[in-house]
């Protein structure tokens, strides 16, 4: 009852507080900049008219938002109809094709290198490339078209928090289901559930090597039997269906398999789990804690990554000894259950709440997150036992989110820039990977951040001279309808008119939400002075605004 009262009070209070500082229009613009990928034409006014807090509340319950358009578009992506096993078979066939081609290529060199890359290779290779492109493009399409904007923002946040590099071996097979089945369904759920799901995901287990972390001296049952059914460890080599029938040969094969066997624990995942996913680098753990966590997670593995296999707990590889993590004892004799216990423990520790809350505030409020914002988020985390929806709600209802110094304080990432520009001109992206390639060219190849820390949430990472020039080029091309992979609807922004003042006013209102500086207005007016063709003039004005400094901020 008390909680309900508190919530009811809070839902009124910030509205009152923010109205003292920001007009309904400006607060709608700010919310759309930060909790969405920027406004589509007319959206600022619509959100302002319905009340920005109401809009935020609806965004926090995405399941209740009708999102048919985005769902229908997503359904045209073939990648969503392939599971990891299908993808593994496809890539195996593709690499078989490539091998054959290379063998021919030794006799007849470089024949198809004259063809454009997308048309090189056989049918399976082309399909593999197309599907890999779809994985990235789907991000852009959902961000641009979905009405569940805050949900897509949160998905992006978690994809980054639990970063997996798409280019590492089997991960190109494992990443699609990681996104669709592990992260997306839990993006506004309980943090502990997300953490456990990520820990069980083949994509992460492969990326951070935990799948081959074993208790020293342990050996898979298959290697102790006279015949092995399948080659157990992922490698680039061909899939070998078993050892030779001939005893001497089988012995040598078994010896080689044994040499390739992991010999002990691999600390990689354990370390990143503590440093990146939960406690944070200053979260108070020691090297010994890393080792103990790695021991607890021995045996968390994958059926056969090369074949897109699922999660599998290998009890033969598990260290059943006693462990102590951060002073908490994990008694001997436990198997997979102690890993789950550990993850729940980590999810509930104050250092984790603080670390993850801080990252959320950094994403939603300011590169340098205000302490008050972090405190509000941590308090909500405690209150709700780590319910991400409530943590986000607390951040958005807190005073820092609306504070004047945080309005327009963040520079857009390349993804945010491209998607917000597409949205601003009423753009409709297609299913080819061309827009995702634009995002990559601006410095943010999706799912291809190699290090486990994910893309940085700070402007230094994105603002450099080459990338800025590229943003300007993208803006000009988009406004002129020349950016491949997207159709634009400039009529929804401004009329093609010879009246420069009318045009500038419409572009300012439609794209910058009325925040155009005097200097920008003057420069555009000068450029329009001798533009004769109203259509070209409009494209120029829109291009300059999208590529200009105001639009790089949010």
């Amino acid at each position: 009852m008390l909680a309900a009262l508190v919530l009811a009070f809070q839902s009124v209070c910030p509205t009152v507080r923010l109205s003292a500082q920001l007009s309904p229009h400006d607060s709608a613009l700010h919310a759309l900049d930060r909790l969405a990928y920027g406004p589509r034409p007319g959206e600022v006014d619509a959100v302002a008219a319905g009340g920005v807090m109401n809009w935020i509340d609806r965004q926090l319950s995405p399941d209740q938002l009708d999102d048919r358009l985005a769902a229908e578009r997503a359904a045209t992506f073939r990648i969503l109809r392939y599971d990891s096993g299908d993808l593994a078979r496809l890539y195996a066939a593709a690499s078989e094709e490539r091998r054959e081609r290379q063998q021919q290529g030794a006799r007849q060199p470089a024949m198809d290198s004259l063809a454009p890359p997308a048309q090189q290779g056989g049918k399976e290779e082309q399909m593999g490339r197309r599907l890999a492109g779809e994985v990235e493009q789907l991000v852009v399409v959902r961000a641009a078209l979905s009405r569940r904007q805050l949900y897509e923002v949160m998905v992006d946040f978690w994809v980054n928090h639990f970063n997996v590099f798409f280019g590492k071996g089997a991960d190109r097979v494992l990443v699609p289901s990681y996104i669709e089945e592990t992260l997306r369904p839990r993006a506004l759920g309980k943090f502990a559930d997300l953490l456990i799901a990520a820990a069980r995901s083949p994509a992460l287990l492969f990326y951070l090597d935990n799948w081959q972390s074993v208790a020293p001296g342990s050996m898979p049952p298959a290697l102790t039997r006279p015949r092995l059914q399948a080659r157990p460890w992922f490698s680039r080599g061909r899939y070998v269906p078993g050892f030779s029938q001939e005893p001497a040969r089988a012995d040598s094969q078994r010896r080689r398999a044994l040499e390739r066997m992991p010999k002990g624990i691999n600390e990689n995942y354990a370390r990143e789990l503590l440093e990146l996913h939960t406690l944070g680098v200053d979260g108070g753990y020691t090297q010994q804690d890393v080792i103990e966590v790695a021991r607890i997670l021995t045996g968390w593995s994958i059926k056969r990554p090369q074949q897109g296999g699922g999660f599998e707990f290998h009890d033969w590889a598990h260290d059943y000894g006693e462990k102590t993590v951060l002073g908490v004892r994990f008694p001997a004799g436990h198997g997979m259950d102690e890993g789950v216990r550990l993850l729940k423990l980590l999810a509930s520790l104050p250092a984790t709440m603080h670390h993850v809350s801080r990252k959320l505030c950094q994403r939603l409020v300011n590169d340098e997150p205000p302490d008050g914002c972090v405190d509000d988020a941590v308090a909500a985390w405690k209150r709700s036992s780590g319910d991400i929806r409530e943590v986000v709600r607390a951040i958005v209802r807190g005073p820092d989110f609306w504070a004047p110094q945080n309005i327009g304080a963040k520079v857009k990432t390349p993804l945010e820039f491209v998607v917000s520009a597409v949205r601003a001109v009423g753009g409709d992206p297609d299913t080819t990977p061309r827009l995702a390639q634009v995002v990559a060219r601006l410095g943010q190849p999706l799912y291809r951040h190699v290090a486990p820390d994910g893309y940085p949430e700070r402007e230094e990472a994105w603002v450099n001279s080459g990338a800025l020039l590229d943003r300007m080029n993208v803006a000009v091309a988009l406004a002129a309808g020349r950016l491949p992979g997207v159709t634009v609807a400039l009529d929804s922004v401004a009329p093609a008119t010879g009246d420069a003042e009318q045009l500038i006013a419409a572009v300012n209102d439609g794209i910058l939400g009325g925040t155009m500086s005097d200097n920008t207005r003057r420069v555009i007016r000068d450029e329009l002075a001798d533009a004769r063709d109203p259509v070209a003039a409009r494209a120029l004005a829109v291009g300059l605004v999208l590529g200009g400094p105001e639009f790089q901020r949010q």
Partner: protein
Amino acid sequence: MSVSRRVFVKSGGLALVSLGLDPLFLARAAFASYHPLPPLAASDRPILVCLFQRGAVDGLNMVVPHGESLYYRERPRIAVPASEVVDLDGHFGLHPRLAALKPLWDNKSLGVIHAVGSPDSTRSHFDAQDYMESGTPGAKSTTDGWLNRYCQHDREHDDTPFRAVAFGPQLPRILAGSAPSLAIDDLQAFGLRAPQEAARDRLTRAFEELYAGSATGLLSSSSQEAFEAVQLLQQANPAQYRPDHDADYPRGRLGRSLQQIAQLIKANLGLQLAFADVTGWDTHVNQGASEGQLAARLAELGQGLAAFAQDLGERLRDVVVLTMSEFGRTIRENGNIGTDHGHATAMLVMGGPVNGGRVLGRWPGLDPASRFEGRDLAVTTDFRDLFGEVLARHLGATDLSAVFPGFTPDPTRFPGAIRG
């Protein structure tokens, strides 16, 4: 480039200090406020060009230990016959398709470091490339690359936007970090694009004015860098470039990258560090011996480096080219007439300051007893000792421990790649 704009940048930076902006921003802002304009005249600033052979080059077929019978026993189908290698010192020889490099060896501007690599045992391309670029083998959490850290710690040369340039669509990990660097896919396309020159110049000026008057913080300083770079490059007129001395670059990405690096060097824009990728070394299948897949890649590399040296002519005296690759390949050939992921490999150093005409590093031999994990060529030179030597003796880096954290550089371990 007017004086008043430089003053604007500088005073802009000062004004921001008083606003109490965060230190990381200030680091970049400080980088961005240049010293006087780099002169468009010949300079003798030392230059380092790094080529990353992604995919793990087979060092044993690139620089062949033809004096070892074990090499031939382990590679019955892919060994390069002793009669065909370009002999270097009676024990090692270049792959025959690298023959274009022999004159550089003979005039002592090409050296080889053999059995070099990472102390980390990983055989994952991903991890090993990551370690070689971060410069911290075994530590995944390093966020920046060692070339960028060098720029952060040696501020003497941060007077030009062209100080550190990667040729390719994205900035590689090796240059990631707080010091500014450029990723340029194509020098001619750097800048704003428009159908005609007049339209391009007008668009450039419009954006320049937009940013000069409306941008704040890092957007302001970076856009300043950008337009300055565009203007400097226009003066150098890259579209008109013709290689000197009839240098003939091979077709393909590597040749184009090397030609553009030579262009930038000769344009005197202050280039100090250049980086380019060379792909196609992951020869698991049908690698070939004197001819074949690897031979084709090596021919491109050899011709590219030879053309680069020829094009630069006298300018090569200030330039060092360093090749690197994440690891080597198995000593024994595999069942697919190729090689699998191994450990140590060979790296090439080329240029005027190079202590050339010799194979450097301690050769561990191919004897099974001295192999790494019983199968691969052992690493006897930590790559950081080679990279560190090049930074210290060629570029004059003074604090290597800041560039390679967790590593204690020791000049006595330097392989001797740069003339003292």
